[in-house]
């Protein structure tokens, strides 16, 4: 039985479950502070459980900011208004300071899936690089990276090691890109031109492919990107690099843009759950948000291939690679700047 994430349920159009294992639907609330949201979610879970005879609902609270007594009150309150036959199909799981409590205790297969449910529903969920479509985009990005920087053809071995993908996976990706590749006699490959069609497809799925996570200010006094950057420098993290506008300007200083509304970072987390703990050090007032209409002070993009390709800078800063920066500009809807940045490279001007 496979654990699936972000699944639709046929009887609930418009709804996407955080995770599904067989007949069990998991919903995860992280850092819950609002009792009203808890009540709403409990009713939603009841609706989910009522939708199919054998379906169960498991509500997982990860690091809730509501007291235990209040949580118990809300759970008991829900029990008093939900039909007993439906309430029996619900469970509440709380993870606090690494400890897990279950009410009532989960069946073994649900209990065993909890760790994956929790790590799989982290902000910017890890997309396992061994899955075909994500590996294809990793290979595509690497080829564009080499092409933009005029570094010439690359060996398949280099692609495998840098992407962290197998030979068959890389070969499949290269076959899909055959029409825009030059294959040298020594089996090295390079792009002949910028692969616009594939690039547009990548842009369409880049949020998911890159596991982008947005963080908004909760203090009412958002820190400037400059302030966040100063703090990042002090952290001296080797797995974090600056992208977005700053990164683009690192590669192309004349980029036509004034100001910088947010900080884009690339976080290198090859094949593992991303560690966002450093964000609390940048600003404890930053909280993950999934609302696109909420301005984000910080946006973190995951780099999940084996090698980060960060470029070392000065004073504790690393720079994300130019393809990441270009994707960041698109994600920020800075289309003119993205085009200007792309065209700034010698390769796109037709030179090599």
């Amino acid at each position, binding site marked *: 039985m496979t654990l699936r994430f972000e699944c639709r349920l046929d009887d609930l159009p418009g709804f996407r479950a955080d995770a599904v294992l067989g007949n069990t639907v998991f919903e995860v609330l992280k850092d819950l*502070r609002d009792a009203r949201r808890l009540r709403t979610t409990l009713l939603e879970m009841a609706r989910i459980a009522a939708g199919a005879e054998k379906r169960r609902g498991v509500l997982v609270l990860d690091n*809730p*900011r*509501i*007291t*235990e007594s209040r949580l118990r009150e809300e759970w008991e309150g829900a029990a008093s208004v939900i039909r007993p036959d439906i309430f029996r199909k619900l469970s509440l799981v709380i993870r606090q300071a690494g400890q897990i409590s279950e009410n009532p205790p989960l069946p073994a297969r649900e209990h065993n899936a909890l760790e994956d449910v929790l790590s799989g529903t982290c902000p910017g969920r890890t997309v396992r690089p061994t899955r075909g479509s994500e590996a294809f985009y990793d290979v595509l990005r690497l080829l564009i990276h080499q092409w933009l920087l005029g570094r010439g053809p690359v060996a398949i071995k280099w692609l495998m090691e840098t992407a962290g993908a197998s030979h068959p996976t890389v070969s499949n990706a290269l076959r899909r890109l055959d029409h825009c590749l030059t294959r040298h006699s020594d089996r090295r490959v390079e792009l002949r031109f910028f692969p616009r069609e594939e690039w547009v497809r990548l842009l369409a799925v880049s949020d998911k492919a890159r596991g982008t996570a947005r963080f908004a200010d*909760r*203090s*009412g*006094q958002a*820190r*400037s990107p400059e*302030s966040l950057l*100063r703090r990042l420098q002090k952290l001296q993290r080797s797995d974090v690099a600056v992208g977005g506008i700053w990164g683009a300007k690192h590669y192309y200083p004349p980029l036509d843009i004034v100001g910088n509304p947010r900080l884009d970072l690339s976080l290198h987390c090859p094949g593992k759950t991303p560690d966002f703990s450093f964000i*609390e*050090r940048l*600003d*404890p*007032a930053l909280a993950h948000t999934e609302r696109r209409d909420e301005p984000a002070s910080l946006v973190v993009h995951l780099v999940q291939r084996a090698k980060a390709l960060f470029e070392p800078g000065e004073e504790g800063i690393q720079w994300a690679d130019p393809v990441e920066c270009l994707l960041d500009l698109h994600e920020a809807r800075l289309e003119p700047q993205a085009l200007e940045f792309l065209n700034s490279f010698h390769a796109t001007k037709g030179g090599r």
Partner: protein
Amino acid sequence: MPADKLTKLVSPRAVLKQIATAIPTGCRENIIVIGSLAAGFRFFGNDPKLYVLTKDVDCLLSPRVEAIAAGQAVAESLFEAKWRYHPTDEFPAPGTAKTKENSLPVARLDPPESTDWFIELLTVPESENDLDQRQNRIETSQGHFSLCSFGFLSLCEYKPLMTEFGIAVARPEMMALANLLHHPEIGAQTMSGLIQDRRIKRSNKDLGRVLALAWLSEASETDALLGWPALWRDGLQTKFPSHWRNLVRRVGAGLRQLLEPENEPDLEEARHTCEFGLLASKPPTLEVLRVTGKRLLVDAVEPLERLAL
């Protein structure tokens, strides 16, 4: 937002000017205004339309060696200018020569023709080891009073900010530090008066003040909190040279306790005091106060703890 009958909206600038005018010129340098009025002047002083909700103006007499004489001179001068003793239910009249030190009323005086606020005279402890509350007698023509000293008030003496009126106000950073040290844990003691009809724990009020000062500092200057650790360390080394490192260990304890999820009712009390105090013009939510507290820990408390290693 209505004020209760004890707490009024006052203009920090106007009050400081009135105090400075009434105090002998020679004594002005002995006065450091602390508390909400000091914070109000620092953060709102340039805007004549902004007011602070307060009922008392705490004036620290400094340095200690001159405090008694200065306290007497200040009180006499204020009495001459028609200031009056501020009576309370517990102390309806000034003390006399027969009144024991610990039964003397605190030196609190109302300005002429107003009961919107009163001045309260305090002083600093005699030494770094003297952290208990002490009552120091001052004799005036109107009776005997107590010049109270306690705990970490001496930190407010450290690099105060001089105003154009010739009297100084304590730095918000040092007032915050004093409050943090006063409350290494949330105690059960409550305020003697209500704050907008609510009985509030003393710890929650003072720690709420710390959060308000942190919030206002960040609002007035980007990354202001980053400058607090060095100032705190220097202030502690100056005022508590023999055991400042021990004190550093307790700086964050009460704040961390306040931010624990299970202590949300205490944080709510702190929020309430902010709403009816320094942050009256921009009442914070619980979440805002919580993240402000976390910012203070990350930017100021933790770096201070590292400096003390």
